[in-house]
């Protein structure tokens, strides 16, 4: 075990994958000498060469499309999208090609791409640098989608994603890049705790309410569980980890126990991931629910300028307010939704 930052853990996981399989290549803008704007690929071009760590022209559709061609040729490209807001030029190649190629070729063509996307807000960036586009990809059949939340998962899951024969959209919470944590570097592809890429993780066990978050908000959810316990509310905080497919077995087991569900994400509320989880859990656990699932999310607005971003982002207070609402507590700050 050694302590390292989130960013460094990703770097170490990429390195390990590249050592393991010579067909793993990294592609993206500024990932070579610069090591990426977040330095996630720091030093890798120096050590593996310009054929393995490829600075591409500034064209995301081009990156995605050529990565597909490299997959045809037997490579396992790992793409870095520089910021969340710049994945959209590649959307067509992702949705119509990456996601469908295995199906449309009757399983003959594998597309083991890993599409790394630093996502989410909270770092005071200008426009288009703080998006949370995960719902678009979760709604797209044929993709797997994960969001990592801590250095150990970053290290293990990037390796699992790269080893996975399906395309994986891999979300990294950019505001956590400098967080530090213990990482077991001997952990293999299965990862410590034996969690596979598709499994959620229970962060804190609890009995009153289930609180689901992912990516940047997994930590906030864990903190909320601690804060709530001071007030005598027992929160089971869960880090979703896999956004597609969602690990409903874990979520169901928890909600059957607690009867209450709060879901937190930074993305806008309407048709976001919270809606999917609320709907599916309601389907699966209707008679166990004591309150409607509560969503604590970004608002239905374009991601705002940085002076306002902390009003938009769910924080500890807003999540606790959501917990209060799910508990039907009268001191909820915003009142209950129902009957308004």
């Amino acid at each position, binding site marked *: 075990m050694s302590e390292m930052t989130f960013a460094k853990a990703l770097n170490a996981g990429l390195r390990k994958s590249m050592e393991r399989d010579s067909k793993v*290549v990294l592609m993206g803008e500024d990932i070579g000498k610069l090591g990426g704007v977040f330095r996630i690929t720091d030093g890798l071009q120096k050590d593996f060469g310009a*054929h393995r760590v490829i600075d*591409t*022209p500034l*064209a995301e*559709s*081009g990156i*995605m*499309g*050529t*990565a*597909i*061609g*490299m*997959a*045809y*040729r*037997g*490579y396992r490209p790992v793409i870095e999208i520089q910021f969340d807001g710049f994945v959209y*030029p590649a959307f*067509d*190649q992702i949705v*119509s*090609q990456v996601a*469908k190629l*295995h*199906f*449309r*070729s*009757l*399983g*003959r*063509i*594998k597309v083991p791409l890993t599409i790394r996307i630093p996502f989410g807000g909270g770092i005071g960036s200008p426009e288009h640098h703080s998006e949370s586009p995960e719902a678009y990809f979760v709604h797209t*059949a*044929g993709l*797997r989608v994960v969001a990592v939340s801590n250095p150990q998962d970053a290290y293990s899951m990037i390796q699992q994603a790269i080893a*996975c*024969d*399906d395309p994986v959209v891999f979300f990294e919470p950019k505001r956590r890049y400098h967080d530090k944590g213990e990482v077991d570097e001997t952990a293999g592809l299965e990862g410590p705790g034996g969690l596979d890429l*598709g499994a959620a993780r229970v962060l804190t066990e609890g009995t009153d309410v289930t609180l689901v978050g992912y990516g940047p908000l997994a930590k906030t959810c864990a903190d909320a569980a601690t804060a709530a316990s001071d007030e005598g509310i027992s929160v089971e905080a869960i880090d979703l980890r896999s956004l*597609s*497919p*969602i*690990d*409903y*077995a874990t979520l169901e087991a928890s909600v059957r126990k607690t009867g209450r569900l709060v879901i937190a994400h930074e993305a806008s509320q309407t048709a976001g991931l919270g809606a999917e989880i609320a709907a599916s859990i309601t389907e699966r656990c209707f008679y166990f629910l004591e309150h409607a699932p509560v969503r604590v999310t970004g608002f239905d607005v374009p991601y705002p300028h940085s002076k306002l971003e902390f009003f938009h982002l769910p924080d500890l207070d807003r999540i606790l307010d959501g917990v209060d609402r799910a508990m039907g507590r009268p001191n909820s700050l915003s009142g209950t939704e129902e009957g308004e």
Partner: protein
Amino acid sequence: MSTYQMTAGHGGSPIQLLSPDGVRHPHERYDRFLADVDGNVEGVDRAALLVSIYEDMVVARRVDAEGTALQRQGQLGLWPPFVGQEAAQIGSAHAIGADDFIFPSYREIGVAYARGAELPDLVRQWRGNAHSGWDPFVMNMAPSQVVIGAQTLHAVGYAMGVLFDGAETAVVTYFGDGATSQGDVNESMVFAASFQAPVVFFCQNNQWAISEPVGIQAHVPIARRAPGFGISSVRIDGNDVLACLAATREALERARSGNGPSFIEAVTYRMGPHTTADDPTRYRDANELEDWKEKDPIARFEAYLASIGVVDDAVRARAAEKADAVAAALREATIHMPDPEPESLFEHVYAGPQPVLERQRDHFARYRHGIEGGLGAGAETTAEGGR
């Protein structure tokens, strides 16, 4: 109100080795790529080679007509005729090596035929039995691509892989005149040039993108686009099978020898409708078609072959016979193609397990079982949509 015009995309004189009357004109740059078909390579049976090209063109046209007929008879959902483009497709296909990899659009059925695709694989997707036909790794040819231009990036990526492997394979991608407007096609030229990828961009400028004449896409001849990216480019008569063969061979040689990408604009004509769902009389003049019939790629090649004594009535008859036999086999294969199993809907979405989808599959199976068992309210009513 000021006016604007969109007229260009024409002009320049495409390279021609066979004039429409079937006369072979020597060409300084290209003759060296035609030594075998010109009879200048010892040990090569020139006549056999020429006849194989000729037969492929004749059979391809017949396959195309059969596709249209099968569609008209309801055996196929749609068919994209390539009649008129046989020289471009068969000429280029004969240049491409078995190890080379092809990324086509939807219209390269002639290329697939010449490359040896199984007949059912030519129609599978047009019948709606699957989204693709041949095995891409048996044919070294990607499934056909419907999203305009998307395949050109795949081709460049594959070629980058070839480069990184240090291999001598080359890659060819086909696309139309309309496709040149897409961002992806232009980005593919950026990547190809920057990485000096061994790829050949083969643009069949058949003058139309559905109802839009090429002048809407390009203000100057399309072949001029590529040099601006640093890619060598040539404009050839796409109805001249020898020009298509020679230009493709030249470009492949350039690719294999590490000299980077090439662009070929093959000037040809879509003699049929865009697809069987299209009605070209709404947007184009019948005279245009008549003009292009004068430049028919098969008639031209046949005249040339007759003039050098390679084609005679016997050869013609054999080709026609083969065409009929292939068409009949295609028809048989189509008509008897078994429908896919409903449960196959859930197959191959993922390479690995996916529990949410598996639950849907199980739900669907129970539902189907229920329907078949005649249970439930729904079973009393008739499903719409005619399944």
